[in-house]
C-alpha cells in the first residue's frame, strides 16, 4: 500500500494540473488470445439454465433488462390497441367499464414502471462500464437483485390482468378512489405492492449507476472530460435517488392505510387526499426527466458520430443536464393546477415549468448546431433521430402550453394531455432509444443489420405515431376527457377517435417490424467489422460482440479512445488479465479519475435471486392479506441479506496488485473508501429523502388537512421524554462505539467496542419498542398514524444498524478485522449516525407536538 501511495504522489507532483492528466506507463504487450482465455474463464456466466439464475455480469444483466423491458412494452402495446379498439366507436361494447379501467391503468403503469425505467436501467447497466472503461458495474450482485425484483414484480402485476384483479384507479392512483372504501378488492394492492417491489430495482440501479460513474472510470479520466453519456446518466441516477423515495413513501403509507386503517389520506380523521397527489407528483414529474435524460445522452453520443464531428458545447450540455436535474424538482404542482391552489403559487410553478424548457432548448440547438458543423450521414440511427426532432419539438411546445395556468384549466385531464405526453415520451424516449438500439446492436450481437427492414419499420412507426396522436390534441380540445371508454352523446368525437385508432394499428405494425428486424439482425446479419460507426468512445475499443470482461486491460491516459483497441487487447493498459483468478476492476478517485485501489467483484452466485425471492415472499404475503405471517418474509430477507456481507470481507491481508509499471494498488479489503462505502452514502441520500418526505407529510397534514388539531393524546410527557433521551443515548453510545471500533481495530480492545456497539444498538431498539407501546392508537387520527410511521422508520433503521453491528462483532471475533482491514465497520458507522440523526428529529417532533 505504501509504495503505491508514494508512486501516485510522485505522479501527482509531476503532473501539471488542468493541463493534461497524469500519464501512466504502458504494461508490456502479451499475447491477446492468452489474455482472452484467462479472462473469459473468470468472467463468463455459467452455461445453460444455471447461468440464468447466477449471472451477475453487467453485460448479461443489462441485455436481460432491455429484452424484458421490450416484452413488457409489447404487452403494454397490446393493451393500447385494446384501448384504441374500444374508442374507435362511441358505443364500444368491446370492453366493459371495469375492464376498460383496468386496461388503461395497466397500460400507463406498464409503460412507466415496467418499460421505460427498466429499459433505461438496462441501457445504463450494459453501456456504462464499456463507455467509461471498466470491467463491470460497481455492484454486480445488486444488478442481478434488481433484475429479479423487476421480473417477479412485473410478472405479478401483468398476471393480475388475467384474474381480473388488475389495478383500476388510473396510473396515478388518486385516493380516495384507491382506498379500501372505494376499492375494496385486491386491485389497488397489486399496484402499490407490485410497483414498490419493482422500484427496488430502480433504487438498486440508481445507487449503482451513481457509484459506477463516480468511481469506475478509465484511469485519469477526469469527471469534467468523461463522455457526455456519463453526465446524463449521473443526472438520471441522482434524480432517481431523490425522486423515487416520495413515491415509495406514498405507496407504503397508502398500503398501510388499506391494510391497517391508518388514516394518512382520510379526511374524516385528519388525513388528506392532497398528500398523495403531492408525494406522487414529487416523484412523477422528475420521472419524466429521469426517462428523458438517458435518451438525450444517447442523442448526444450518436449525433456527433453520425455527423463526423465533435459535439458542440460540452460544457453547456453538462450545465443543461444539471439545470434539468434541479428544475425538474420544482414543477410537480403543474399536474395539480386544478386542485384549488392559490393562483400566485401556481404562477411560481408555471414559471418553473416553462423555465425547464430552456435547458431542453439549449440541448436541441446544440444538437442542430453539431449537425450544422458536420456532415450528416443518413444511416438508420439518424432516421430515428429525425423522428425524435419532429416529434419531441412539438411535444415540448405543447408542454409549454400546458404550463400556462389558464390553458391548463381547460386542457387538463383531456385527450390533449394524452397527446402531449405521448409526444414527449415516444418522441423524447422511444425514438432515441430505437436509435440507440440500432446504433449499439453491432456491439451487442456482433452483426450488421439486414437491409431495408429498419427503414420500413421507422416509417410505419413515424406515420402511425403522428396519425394517432396529432389529431388527438383536437380530440381533447373539443372536450373529450381522459379515461372514458364510451361517449354515446358525442358523435362529433367519433371520427377523430377512429382516425387515431386506425393509425394506432399502423404504429403497432411498425413496432412489430422493428422487433422482427432486431431478431433478424441477431440471427442472420452479416458479421460487423470493428467500430462500424468510427466512434471515438471506449465501448468500441473491444472486439465485437463485446466480451464478458469488456477490456483485456483497462484503458488509461495512453489508451484514450476506440483507437486503442489493439494495445488494450494486448494487455498494455492497466491491470491486464485475471492473474489472481478474480473479477477485478480499477477504482478511481471521483473527481480526477486517479486510480486508488483494485476492487474484487462478485462472481456468479444465486444469492441475488434468493434475496429477491425472500423479499418477494414478504410482498406476496402482504398481497394475500396474510399480514401476521408477512414478518416471516422480512426474517427470510434478513437471513439472506446476512450472507451478502459474509462473502465481502476476508480473513487475511493480500499483497497489492500490479496495475501498471510503477503502480501497485491495494485490493479493496484493505482500503477505507471502498465502492461499498460510496454506495452506502448514495443509499443514505435516498433514505434521507424518504425521511424528508415523511416530515413533509407531517407538516402538510398539520397545516392543510381539515379536522385538526388532533384529539388529546394519551402520552405522559415526562416518562416519554425520559425514554426518548434514553433511546437516543443508546444510539449515540453505539455510534461512538462504532467509531472507536475502527480506531482500535488493530487492538485487542476492538472486541469490547464492537460488543458494546451491539448491546447499545439493541438497547436503543428496545427503548423504541417501549415508545411504540405508549403511542396512541394509530387508527384514531392522522397525527397518531404519522407518529407510528416515524417510529417505524426509526425501528427499520435500528434493525439495519443492529445487523451491521452484529456483522462487525462477528468479524472482530473471527479475525476478519485488522490494522489493514476494516470490514463493515465504516458502513456501520454511517448507518449508526443516520439512525441517531433521524431518530432525534422524529422524537423531538413528537415531543414538540405534545408540548405545543
Amino acid at each position, binding site marked *: 500500500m505504501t509504495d503505491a501511495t508514494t508512486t501516485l504522489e510522485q505522479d501527482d507532483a509531476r503532473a501539471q494540473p488542468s493541463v493534461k492528466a497524469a500519464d501512466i506507463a504502458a504494461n508490456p504487450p502479451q499475447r491477446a488470445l492468452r489474455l482472452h482465455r484467462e479472462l473469459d474463464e473468470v468472467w463468463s456466466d455459467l452455461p445453460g439454465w444455471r447461468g440464468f439464475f447466477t449471472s451477475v455480469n453487467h453485460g448479461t444483466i443489462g441485455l436481460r433488462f432491455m429484452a424484458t423491458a421490450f416484452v413488457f412494452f409489447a404487452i403494454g402495446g397490446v393493451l393500447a390497441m385494446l384501448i384504441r379498439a374500444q374508442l374507435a366507436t362511441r358505443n364500444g361494447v368491446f370492453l366493459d*367499464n371495469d375492464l376498460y*379501467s383496468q386496461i388503461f391503468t395497466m397500460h400507463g403503469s406498464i409503460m412507466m414502471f415496467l418499460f421505460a425505467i427498466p429499459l433505461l436501467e438496462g441501457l445504463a447497466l450494459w453501456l456504462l462500464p464499456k463507455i467509461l472503461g471498466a470491467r463491470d458495474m460497481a455492484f454486480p450482485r445488486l444488478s442481478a437483485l434488481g433484475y429479479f425484483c423487476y421480473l417477479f414484480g412485473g410478472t405479478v402485476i401483468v398476471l393480475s390482468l388475467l384474474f381480473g384483479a388488475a389495478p383500476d*384507479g388510473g396510473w396515478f392512483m*388518486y385516493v380516495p*378512489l384507491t382506498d379500501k*372504501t*372505494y376499492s375494496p378488492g385486491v386491485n389497488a394492492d397489486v399496484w402499490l405492492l407490485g410497483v414498490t417491489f419493482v422500484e427496488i430495482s430502480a433504487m438498486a440501479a440508481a445507487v449503482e449507476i451513481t457509484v459506477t460513474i463516480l468511481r469506475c472510470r478509465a484511469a485519469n479520466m477526469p469527471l469534467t472530460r468523461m463522455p457526455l453519456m456519463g453526465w446524463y446518466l449521473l443526472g438520471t441516477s441522482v434524480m432517481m435517488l431523490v425522486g423515487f423515495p416520495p413515491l415509495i413513501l406514498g405507496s407504503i403509507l397508502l398500503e398501510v392505510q388499506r391494510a391497517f386503517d391508518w388514516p394518512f389520506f382520510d379526511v374524516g380523521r385528519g388525513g*388528506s*387526499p*392532497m398528500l398523495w397527489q403531492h408525494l406522487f407528483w414529487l416523484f412523477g414529474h422528475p420521472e419524466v426527466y429521469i426517462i428523458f435524460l438517458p435518451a438525450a445522452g444517447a442523442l448526444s453520443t450518436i449525433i456527433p458520430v453520425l455527423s*463526423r464531428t465533435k459535439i*458542440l*458545447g460540452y460544457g*453547456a450540455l453538462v450545465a443543461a443536464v444539471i439545470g434539468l436535474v434541479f428544475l425538474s424538482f420544482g414543477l410537480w404542482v403543474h399536474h395539480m393546477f*386544478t*386542485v*384549488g391552489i392559490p*393562483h400566485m403559487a401556481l404562477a411560481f410553478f*408555471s*414559471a418553473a415549468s*416553462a*423555465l425547464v*424548457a*430552456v435547458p431542453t*432548448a*439549449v*440541448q436541441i*440547438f*446544440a444538437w*442542430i448546431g453539431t449537425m*450544422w*458543423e*458536420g*456532415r*450528416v450521414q443518413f444511416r438508420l440511427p439518424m432516421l430515428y433521430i*429525425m423522428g425524435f*426532432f419532429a416529434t419531441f*419539438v*412539438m411535444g415540448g411546445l*405543447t408542454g*409549454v402550453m400546458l404550463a*400556462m*395556468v*389558464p*390553458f391548463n*384549466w*381547460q386542457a*387538463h*385531464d383531456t385527450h390533449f394531455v394524452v397527446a402531449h405526453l405521448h409526444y414527449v415520451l415516444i418522441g423524447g424516449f422511444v425514438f432515441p432509444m430505437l436509435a440507440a438500439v440500432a446504433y449499439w446492436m453491432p456491439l451487442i450481437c456482433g452483426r450488421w443489420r439486414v437491409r431495408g427492414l429498419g427503414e420500413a419499420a421507422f416509417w410505419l412507426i413515424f406515420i402511425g405515431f403522428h396519425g394517432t396522436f396529432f389529431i388527438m390534441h383536437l380530440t381533447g*380540445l*373539443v372536450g373529450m*376527457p*381522459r*379515461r*372514458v*371508454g364510451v361517449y354515446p*352523446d358525442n358523435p*362529433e*368525437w367519433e371520427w*377523430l377517435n377512429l382516425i387515431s385508432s386506425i393509425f394506432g394499428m399502423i404504429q403497432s405494425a411498425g413496432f412489430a417490424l422493428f422487433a422482427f428486424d432486431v431478431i433478424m439482425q441477431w440471427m442472420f446479419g452479416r458479421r460487423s467489422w470493428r467500430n462500424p460507426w468510427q466512434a471515438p468512445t471506449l465501448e468500441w475499443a473491444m472486439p465485437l460482440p463485446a466480451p464478458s470482461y469488456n477490456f483485456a486491460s483497462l484503458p488509461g491516459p495512453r489508451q484514450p479512445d476506440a483507437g486503442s483497441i489493439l494495445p488494450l487487447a494486448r494487455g498494455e493498459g492497466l491491470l491486464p488479465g485475471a492473474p489472481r483468478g478474480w473479477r477485478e476492476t480499477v477504482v478511481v478517485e471521483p473527481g480526477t479519475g486517479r486510480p486508488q485501489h483494485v476492487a474484487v467483484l462478485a462472481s456468479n452466485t444465486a444469492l441475488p435471486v434468493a434475496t429477491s425471492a425472500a423479499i418477494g415472499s414478504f410482498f406476496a404475503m402482504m398481497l394475500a392479506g396474510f399480514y401476521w405471517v408477512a414478518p416471516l418474509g422480512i426474517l427470510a430477507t434478513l437471513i439472506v441479506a446476512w450472507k451478502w456481507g459474509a462473502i465481502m470481507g476476508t480473513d487475511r491481508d493480500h499483497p497489492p496488485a500490479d496495475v501498471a509499471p510503477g503502480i501497485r494498488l491495494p485490493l479493496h479489503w484493505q482500503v477505507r473508501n471502498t465502492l461499498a462505502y460510496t454506495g452506502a452514502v448514495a443509499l443514505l441520500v435516498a433514505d434521507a429523502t424518504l425521511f424528508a418526505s415523511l416530515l413533509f407529510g407531517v407538516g402538510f397534514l398539520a397545516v392543510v388537512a381539515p379536522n385538526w388539531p388532533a384529539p388529546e393524546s394519551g402520552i405522559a410527557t415526562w416518562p416519554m421524554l425520559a425514554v426518548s433521551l434514553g433511546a437516543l443515548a443508546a444510539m449515540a453510545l453505539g455510534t461512538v462505539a462504532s467509531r472507536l471500533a475502527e480506531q482500535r481495530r488493530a487492538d485487542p480492545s476492538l472486541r469490547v467496542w464492537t460488543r458494546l456497539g451491539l448491546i447499545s444498538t439493541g438497547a436503543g431498539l428496545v427503548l423504541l419498542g417501549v415508545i411504540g407501546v405508549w403511542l396512541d392508537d394509530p387508527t384514531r387520527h392522522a397525527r397518531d398514524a404519522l407518529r407510528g410511521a416515524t417510529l417505524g422508520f426509526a425501528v427499520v433503521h435500528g434493525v439495519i444498524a443492529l445487523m451491521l453491528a452484529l456483522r462487525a462483532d462477528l468479524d472482530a471475533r473471527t479475525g476478519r478485522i485488522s490494522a489493514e482491514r476494516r470490514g463493515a465497520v465504516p458502513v456501520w458507522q454511517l448507518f449508526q449516525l443516520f439512525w441517531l440523526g433521524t431518530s432525534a428529529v422524529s422524537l423531538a417532533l413528537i415531543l414538540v407536538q405534545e408540548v405545543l
Partner: protein
Amino acid sequence: MLAVPLLTACNGPLSTLNPSGPVALEIARLWWAMLIGAGLITAMVMVMLILAIRRGPMLTEGNTSERRWIYGWGLGFSLSVLTVLLAFALWVGERMLARDDGAVTVQAQASQWTWRFVQPGPGGQPVMTEGVLYVPAGQPFDVAITSTDVIHSFWVPQLGGKMDAIPGHPNLHRLMADEPGVYEGQCAEFCGRGHPFMRFEVVAYDPAGPLPDFASITGPMVEPAFPEDVSGFEGTGQTEIPAQESSE
C-alpha cells in the same frame, strides 16, 4: 371534405373552441395565439434541421458557432419567448379568479356518479337540483365545489376551465355565461366505473325574464362548502335575482 366534421367537432357542446363565456373566450384566444407561435417555432426548427443536413461541412470558428447556437438560440430565443408568454398567461389567469364582488354563489356537490347543485331559486330561497345547475346569464357566478366521496372535477368547457371536487377541500370557481342557453358539463377526473356518465347541464336563464322551472329534488340539503359564507349566499340571492323578479 374534412371541413364539415372539423367544424362540427369544434362547435360541439363540450368544445373549448366554442366559448360562450368570458373565461372560456380568453382561454380560447390564448390557445390560438400559442398555436400560431408553436407552429412558427416548429417550422423554424425543422427548416434549421433540413439546412443542417443539406449543407456540407463548413467549419465555422468554434466559439462563434457555440455562441450562436447555445447562447443565441438555446438561451436567448427560448427565454424571451417564454417570458412574454408567461407574463401574458399570468395576466389572463389573474382576471379569471373568483373575487369578493357579490357575485351569485352556487353549490356543486359531486358524488359517485352524480352532481347535486344548490342555487338561488324563486324568492332567493336555495333550491337543490340534481344534474342541472341554474344560473343567471350575463352575470358572473361562483361555484363552491365539494365532494362526498372520491375526487371529481367540475367542467363546463364552453364556459371555462375545470376545478376539482376534493373531499375536505372545498374550492371556489368563477364562471359566467354570456347568453341564455344550455351548456353541457362533465366530470373530468376519473372517479370510477360511472365516470363516463357523470354529466350535467348548466342552464343560463335570462335574469330579466321569468325564472325557469327548477327541476328541484328533495332530500338532505347539500352541506355549504364554506359555512362562513352562508349569509353571503342568501344575501346575494336576496339582492340580485328576486329584486328583478319582484319588479315584474
